[in-house]
């Protein structure tokens, strides 16, 4: 789960990190009022859960109130990569002297949290890593001991010899680690972490991603969830215990298991079709899940055929069949359904599906080819 910059900054500030003055606005008038309160030049920053908002025109410098009004009007309601901007952060514009990157994420290779620091701040860090990897300093943290002051200090000395920067960055790194652990984060980052012309240091941007698996014990952070920033079908799917990702094709896929679901999508593509979605009904066998999954898939008008691909292990084929029958009964399914159910309790499932209008298939290849044919697209 992602939280907005303004929310991350609230968390950062509550842990003592230096964050420029600022507040979030949902209307132009609010934006102006906040800018007046702050006084002086401000930044108007779109609060959306996508990268590249700057390039998309979602971050603007406003010299005066007139400019605040102009930029807030332009940004509020703006579409950035498919998301509508509902909120802007109005925040003190800093007199930037130097820009750094400081971040912390879970590093899969070392199976440990890892600090990332760079003197090349303010720009896309992945781009820096790709083009000038020597500008990236990393340090793996042993999670049993947590981040040590000497480690943070060593990283800071690696990018600066300015005492204020070293001191501020050391503190920032240790604080980021605390935030990371306390909020069950998967990523926490300040980009840029700046030195202002007056020598003071500031967290000018803030990013905080939380491990979805840990949200159950992070009620305060879960309350920050902004559902307007997420695809409603994905949200509905998640609530039902499904994993769903919308794609552009016309073959709806309903699969148990993420790997098999991806392999099914890949196979649709392989045979010349396009999958309409990724959908994993997960590891348990609740018939209601199948109903919900069908509803979500059918909401997409592009879908011309539905492909069930179930390999029963912890999921039982008879449960899926029951859900499928229930779904077909409840919903008016306007497209053909290909059902391939194999594995645990497959005989029972086969028996249950007899006499329905479902198209059975024995193998994945057969099922996908049949679905494409029925969708009017088979090779």
């Amino acid at each position, binding site marked *: 789960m992602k939280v907005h910059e303004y929310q991350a900054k609230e968390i950062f500030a509550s842990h003592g990190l230096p964050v420029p003055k600022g507040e979030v606005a949902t209307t132009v008038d609010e934006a102006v009022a906040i800018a007046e309160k702050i006084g002086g030049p401000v930044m108007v920053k779109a609060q959306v859960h996508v990268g590249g908002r700057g390039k998309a025109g979602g971050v603007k410098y406003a010299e005066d109130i007139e400019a605040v009004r102009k930029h807030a009007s332009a940004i509020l309601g703006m579409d950035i990569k498919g998301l509508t901007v509902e909120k802007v952060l109005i925040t003190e514009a800093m007199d930037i002297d130097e820009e750094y990157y400081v971040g912390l994420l879970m590093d899969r290779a070392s199976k440990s949290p890892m600090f990332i620091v760079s003197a090349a701040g303010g720009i896309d860090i992945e781009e820096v890593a790709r083009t000038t990897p020597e500008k990236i300093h990393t340090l793996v943290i042993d999670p049993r001991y947590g981040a040590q002051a000497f480690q943070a200090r060593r990283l800071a000395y690696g990018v600066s010899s300015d005492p204020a920067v070293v001191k501020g960055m050391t503190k920032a790194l240790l604080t980021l680690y605390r935030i990371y652990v306390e909020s069950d984060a998967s990523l926490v980052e300040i980009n840029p972490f700046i030195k202002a012309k007056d020598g003071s240091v500031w967290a000018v941007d803030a990013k905080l991603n939380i491990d979805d698996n840990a949200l159950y014990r992070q009620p305060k952070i879960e309350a920050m969830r902004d559902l307007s920033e997420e695809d409603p079908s994905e949200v509905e799917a998640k609530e039902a215990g499904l994993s769903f990702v919308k794609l552009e094709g016309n073959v709806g896929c309903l699969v148990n298991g993420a790997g098999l679901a991806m392999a099914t*999508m890949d*196979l649709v593509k392989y045979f010349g079709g396009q999958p309409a979605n990724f959908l994993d009904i997960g590891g348990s066998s609740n018939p209601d899940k199948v109903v919900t999954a069908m509803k979500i898939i059918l909401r997409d008008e592009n879908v011309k055929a539905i492909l069930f691909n179930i390999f029963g292990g*912890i999921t039982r084929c008879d449960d899926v069949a029951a859900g499928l029958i229930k779904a077909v009964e409840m919903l008016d399914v306007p497209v053909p359904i290909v059902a391939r159910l194999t594995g645990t309790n497959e005989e029972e499932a086969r028996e249950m599906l007899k006499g329905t209008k479902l198209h059975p298939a024995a193998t994945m290849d057969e099922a996908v080819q049949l679905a494409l044919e029925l969708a009017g697209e088979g090779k």
Partner: protein
Amino acid sequence: MSIFVNKDTKLVVQGITGRDGSFHTKQMMEYGTQVVAGVTPGKGGQKFEGSVPIFDTVAEAVKETGANTSVIYVPAAFASDAIREAVDAGCRLVVCISEGVPVNDMAVTYKYVKERGAQLIGPNCPGIISPGQSKVGILPAQITAEGKVGVVSRSGTLTYEVVDQLTRNGLGQSTCIGIGGDPIIGTGFLDCLEAFENDPETEAVVLIGEIGGDDEERAAEYIQTKMSKPVVSFIAGRTAPPGKRMGHAGAIVSGGKGTAESKVKAFEAAGVRVADKPSDIVPLLAESYEPARKALEGR
């Protein structure tokens, strides 16, 4: 032979009285796995299916029954504690089926397990089966057969799909292992490849990867430099859009890293054949593994 589990595996089931735990324990017992104990705090003293003693703690279970392996079916919030309990009690192998374990917990748990010299498979995995010897987890045993192909996979059901095709083509398996789809897992491709290489019974290996991370890339390097046995691979997620988590917490292409293309390229550069679709795996295996060729011809 086989890897990690075999006839000597004496299993304790943590969460034996839960819905999933009880269902799969019965399946494991039917298969012939030596299920020697179960653990559910508060149900110590009872028996599962009238025969398997249930204990309040794993320590007691191990002490009383000599269990050497644990399988975990507890809810995700309790899984890290369950893993540590099993290791602390002396289980040398712990297989964690539970899905949804917080990744920062796993980072610490991984250290805990390693430090004590134990081995963890999973979490969020289907487990492991050495056909004809022992099944630990939830893999459907009926699709497996005794044989000499090792199967290792980050997926669950996709593994079943591939194993099913091997079996239907007359290629039995030495061991099939699902290592799990989370960003941090106890046993990775490298551990399994090394074990398969050292297992005299295993003659060829099928590796099933997916997008996310760079474990496949490192596996490719390992195969090229250290392995003598033929390996065929398959990578799921070629059509997955970047930035989206595809079910598994670990299956995500982010920052241009972890793409299927990168993995396919790494395998091909290492001389490992990559199947375009699951049904191509057996034919590809036939190119470098004689019994597979004969099996295909014999059909």
